[in-house]
């Protein structure tokens, strides 16, 4: 194969794998920010918290990090439900959620980061599953399992979430709650309960993304900062409440970054990726899969 074409194909493939990680990181935010209108700036910090818990579970139990991420899901759901209960009680109920709610989530982010430093120190932590050092070679295309396994697991989890939201009564209630909470009340559904459930799910996905992150790269308490801009951009680009859009936007972000890095130099990667976001918003202000108001 022509070396230039091999370089391009590898950049596309590695971009798709990277984009899957971005999608995993963003999909929980699509639920909280896109569906519930809660600007959870602490989402990437919750993801890093998940990564640290995965590291601890993996070291203690000797299990696969992605399995560990799955096992901690109930605890993360409870954490998310608790955070939402506090947010609702102190801000949303009083109608103070806009600015004060944002400050609340900033506070949670700082508490998580400092808590991780106090507990684990400032050093990087990592997991070392047996497959992390294995790379599959399909001709000239490289598929490092360090990226492939978390990507497949992330997309499978997102698929399950999409199925749940589309095919269950509660799932449809979550999709409806941001649009018309009063209509839910008419159906004898408590919108606060639905929001609590949905926010818990968004934090579960932060934890799952943390598990994927721990496999992909070592983490330190501030690893989430790298993702803040990206995950919000992906959610907006995908169309806020659209999970399919979120996945496609994540993949597009990953491919744009890696193709740019391979062909034009890595310094241009963020500019091209965020430029693509601006382009999408210029032609479709509601995002790729969002509905026009």
């Amino acid at each position, binding site marked *: 194969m022509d070396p230039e074409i091999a370089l391009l194909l590898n950049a596309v493939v590695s971009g798709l794998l990277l984009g899957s990680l971005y999608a995993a990181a963003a999909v929980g935010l699509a639920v909280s920010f896109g569906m519930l209108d809660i600007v959870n700036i602490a989402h990437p910090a919750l993801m890093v918290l998940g990564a640290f818990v995965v590291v601890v579970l993996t070291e203690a139990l000797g299990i696969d990090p992605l399995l560990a991420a799955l096992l901690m899901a109930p605890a993360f759901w409870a954490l998310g439900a608790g955070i939402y209960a506090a947010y609702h009680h102190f801000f949303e109920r009083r109608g103070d959620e806009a600015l004060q709610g944002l400050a609340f989530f900033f506070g949670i982010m700082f508490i998580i980061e400092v808590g991780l*430093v106090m507990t684990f120190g400032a050093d990087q932590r990592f997991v070392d599953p047996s497959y992390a050092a294995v790379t599959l070679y399909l001709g000239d295309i*490289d598929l490092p399992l360090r990226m492939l396994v978390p990507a497949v697991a992330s997309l499978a989890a997102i698929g399950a979430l999409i199925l749940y939201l589309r095919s269950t009564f509660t799932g449809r209630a979550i999709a409806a709650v941001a649009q018309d909470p009063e209509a839910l009340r008419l159906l004898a559904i408590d919108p606060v309960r639905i929001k609590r459930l949905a926010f818990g799910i968004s934090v579960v996905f932060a934890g799952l993304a943390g598990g994927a992150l721990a496999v992909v790269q070592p983490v330190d308490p501030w690893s989430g900062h790298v993702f803040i801009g990206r995950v919000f951009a992906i959610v907006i680009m995908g169309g806020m409440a659209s999970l399919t859009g979120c996945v496609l936007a994540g993949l597009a972000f990953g491919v744009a970054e890696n193709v740019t*890095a391979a062909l034009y130099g890595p310094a241009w990667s963020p500019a091209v990726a965020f430029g693509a976001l601006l382009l999408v918003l210029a032609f479709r202000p509601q995002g790729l899969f969002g509905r026009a108001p």
Partner: protein
Amino acid sequence: MDRITRRDLGRLTAAAAATAAGARPASAQAPSGPPIRIGYSMSLTGGLAGNGRPALVAHQIWAQDVNSRGGLLGRPVELVHYDDQSNGAQVPGIYTKLIDVDKVDLVVSGYATAIIAPAMPVVMQRGMTFVTLLGTGVNHEFRYDRHFNICPVGSDVKETFAKGYMDIAMAMDPKPRTIALAALDADFTQRAVESARHLARQHGLRVVYDRSYPPGTVDFSPIMRSIQAARPDLVYIGSYPPDSAGLLRAASELRMSARIFGGAMIGPQISAQKAQLGPILNNMVNWDIYAPEPTMQFPGVDALLRRYREVAARENTDALGLYVPPLAYAQMQVLEQAVKRVGKIDQAALAADMHAHPFDTVIGELRFDRLGEWTEERNLYIQFQNVTDGNLERFARPGTQVILYPERFRSGTLRTPYGAGST
């Protein structure tokens, strides 16, 4: 062999440290009077904390040592430090408070250029003597005659930083002809790669890849694949810890091979990355500041590292302490020796003394030039050899980080190539 974890290493060193503590001379007369207060900002949280926290531990060990020897000028030493959160914007306020409100007697710096540079205007305005830790070229612009830097880089970064790497490379037979350069968009890494670029031109090397990458890059495989496609003989990379791990993993996954691979990658100096990367590090030639080789057994450094490791296990800081702690301890030794010679806290006299005299430290003898940099650069280029796993105990012993440059500390010979096909 079972892997030795950070905690195991701490337990092992605790016994040795207890012995060392017992061997220490009995306390001199207890210090008395108001303490001599030494103020500084230190990165205890944020991106620089991985090296800031070990530096603080080394400072605290020094303070214990000095106080157990009767203090400084007969007075106890007290460290006054604030967390700058790795944020340079916090630093001027911290030093203003230290000097104007806390009324500290002496100031030193926290870790790294990004923290030293913002402190300089405040320190200069108050005429304080400033002993800094691992800055790179900070005083080139300020030209402050009371600045003294504990960093092996020296005054002429462009000419000397990558000299060791190039000397090692150009001694190979046949001589290399091409080089790839990649650097993070950050002050230190850009300076390091600028030196490599400059010296590569002098040696007639053809630069086949020369790119910068932005902070926050997550996937390094496109960079490594582009370097691989250019087929360079040499690869010189300037990177910080999160990126170094990603770059080295990508190199391993892509079966990257070069006659020499490495450069100024900050990360493999730190225990967590040594444990994490293990054999991936084999044959990498990298910039460093200290290695536990027989050629660098300066008086006191072994005892310091044993005591440091005991504390590190409790404090969750870098387990081995081979990177910043020896230099951080030396930073305080310079201050201590100057104050003892001058006999009082006089900023001008302290600076004059530091310019005039050599210092005996745990990292050897130091002398400062007129910009406050070491008169003789001591950039080490080490090669990781014989790494079979992430066992930290192996990295604490000689023979794993073999010194190739400078000649006076050389402890082994170069092995090539790096990566696929290496032995």
